[in-house]
């Protein structure tokens, strides 16, 4: 191997420093105390890698001369993309944050795919047959990047509740057949190109099939499963970027892409595990529909006891220990400020308030923490499941707001769709108040045995309205 020029040596050192910053940044994101610092370290590494690349491209001598149009493209692209990214990231409401993350993931995957498309067009124009490793990386980059681009856009649209991408699963007649056929086209086209053929039309067919595959893969999946899907697509983008690194022979793309590909895969598995689902089950669209699925009769038939606002307010106001269990419904109703107000009222009366956060509460793991933190709930009051479960026995009231399956005692028995899922031991509390709009089922599609527990009072209301009424009632006491 020939020696590198001084400039290239320096730029490679800068890329290596960037890669080290990414790894150390992720390590520091392990704990809340160092997480922000870790993200800034990672951003610093990114800045170093990008600036070094600009310097390298400006001053390298590769015999082609200065491409002014290329630099205008870079400047305009950075200005446009940077402006849009900065504006949306700073103005987005915290409740809408998951769909923005999905959108950023989409454009990242799109950029990776465009690199491979551009590379292939160059090969095609000069009729250069690529080596096997380049054609493998190019095709994988195009396929994975395109799937992630359209898939993430659909996922983002579903979380926004757009009409064309409804949150509920969309079943296209014969949809699974279409998806399978698209997959077949992609595989056949890839094999054709890998066997040493150079064909622009085949590449375009693969591209189109992969783009449509991203749509048909994501549309049938219910909104509640979107966190897992976004995490999986995030992992895909990482892999696509690593492939772009192989196409361009650029080691920093390979390192960063592989790092994200692996981390996204682990994160996806953790999220799916917490919901007691397998990733494959979710992608095939298992019981995520929430309708027309098995109902499992609990051992205790019992009737549902409904409770009024005033009774609930009295129970809460004169309790010693209250544990609030926030769930998906609270996030949807954007009731985080209302729940914080209620907690303030209770605390001013000397009630000890804690929040029990299930690992998958909200729309993504940790999302509930972010929402409650936004509403200024003190961080020490947010307790993780393992930590708070033993304390339910000492709680006078457990207030469940918009959480369902994660409180279902049926998970402790075998033979139900939620069996084995870790749950919050809400039924161990002395009394339970559940704020819920109706007796509708959670996304597992089964009845919650907690609701027929004699200790449970059901407060039928919208999460936000119910909490506001409770605040008023507690104030009036």
């Amino acid at each position: 191997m020939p020696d590198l020029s001084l400039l290239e040596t320096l730029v490679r050192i800068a890329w290596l420093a960037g890669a080290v910053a990414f790894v150390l940044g992720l390590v520091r994101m392990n704990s809340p105390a160092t997480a922000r610092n870790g993200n800034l370290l990672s951003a610093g590494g990114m800045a170093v890698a990008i600036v070094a690349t600009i310097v390298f491209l400006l001053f390298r001598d590769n015999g082609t001369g200065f491409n002014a149009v290329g630099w205008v493209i870079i400047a305009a692209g950075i200005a446009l993309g940077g402006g849009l990214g900065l504006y949306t990231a700073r103005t987005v409401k915290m409740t809408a944050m998951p769909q923005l993350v999905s959108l950023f993931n989409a454009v990242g995957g799109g950029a990776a795919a465009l690199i491979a498309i551009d590379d292939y067009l160059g090969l095609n124009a000069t009729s250069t047959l690529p080596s096997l490793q380049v054609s493998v990386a190019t095709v994988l980059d195009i396929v994975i990047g395109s799937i992630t681009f359209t898939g993430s856009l659909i996922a983002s649209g579903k979380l926004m509740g757009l009409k064309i991408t409804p949150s509920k699963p969309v079943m296209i007649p014969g949809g699974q057949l279409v998806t399978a056929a698209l997959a077949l086209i992609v595989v056949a086209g890839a094999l054709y190109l890998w066997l040493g053929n150079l064909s622009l039309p085949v590449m375009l067919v693969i591209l189109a099939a992969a783009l449509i595959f991203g749509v048909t893969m994501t549309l049938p999946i219910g909104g509640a499963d979107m966190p897992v899907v976004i995490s999986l697509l995030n992992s895909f983008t990482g892999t696509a970027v690593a492939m772009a690194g192989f196409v361009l022979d650029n080691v920093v793309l390979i390192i960063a892409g592989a790092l994200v590909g692996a981390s996204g895969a682990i994160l996806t598995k953790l999220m799916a595990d917490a919901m007691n689902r397998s990733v494959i089950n979710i992608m095939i669209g298992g019981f995520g529909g929430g309708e027309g699925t098995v109902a499992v009769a609990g051992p205790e038939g019992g009737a549902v006891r409904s409770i009024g606002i005033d009774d609930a307010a009295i129970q809460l106001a004169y309790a010693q220990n209250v544990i609030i269990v926030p769930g998906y419904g609270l996030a949807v109703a954007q009731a985080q400020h209302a729940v914080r107000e209620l907690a303030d009222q209770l605390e001013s009366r000397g009630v000890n308030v804690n929040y029990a956060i299930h690992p998958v509460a909200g729309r993504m793991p940790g999302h509930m923490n972010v929402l409650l933190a936004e509403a200024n709930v003190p961080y020490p009051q947010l307790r993780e499941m393992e930590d708070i479960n033993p304390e339910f026995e000492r709680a006078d009231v457990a207030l469940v707001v918009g959480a369902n399956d994660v409180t279902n005692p049926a998970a402790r028995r075998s033979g139900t769709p939620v069996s084995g899922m870790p749950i919050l031991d809400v039924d161990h509390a002395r009394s339970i108040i559940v704020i819920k709009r109706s007796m509708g089922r959670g996304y597992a599609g089964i009845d919650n045995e907690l609701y027929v527990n004699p200790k449970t009072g059901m407060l039928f209301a919208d999460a936000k309205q119910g909490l506001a009424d409770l605040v008023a009632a507690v104030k009036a006491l």
Partner: protein
Amino acid sequence: MSVELFAALTVFVLAILCGLAVISKVPATLHTPLMSGANSIHGIVLVGSMFIAVEATDPIAQILSFIAVAFATMNVVGGYVVTDRMLLMFRRKPAAAAPAAASSADKPSA
């Protein structure tokens, strides 16, 4: 297989193992910020996008590389900023914990 390709494959495999090791230790609370942080890291694709942009000479390549640069920059800038905003939420607020204990005397004796 060339020496360069084998070196790149080695780096690829080791980086995957590195990613697996780093993530398995993170508590669930930080999973969303972490996903967002990892999401920003693949914005490194901006480096590759600039490489193709500076070599783009025909109009199609210029359009493709312009979109790639804009997309990648949006990924980088937006990703880091939104992650930082999320993590800012986790700052301890020292004033918030105290009033609960102080005001417990207000509890009515009814």
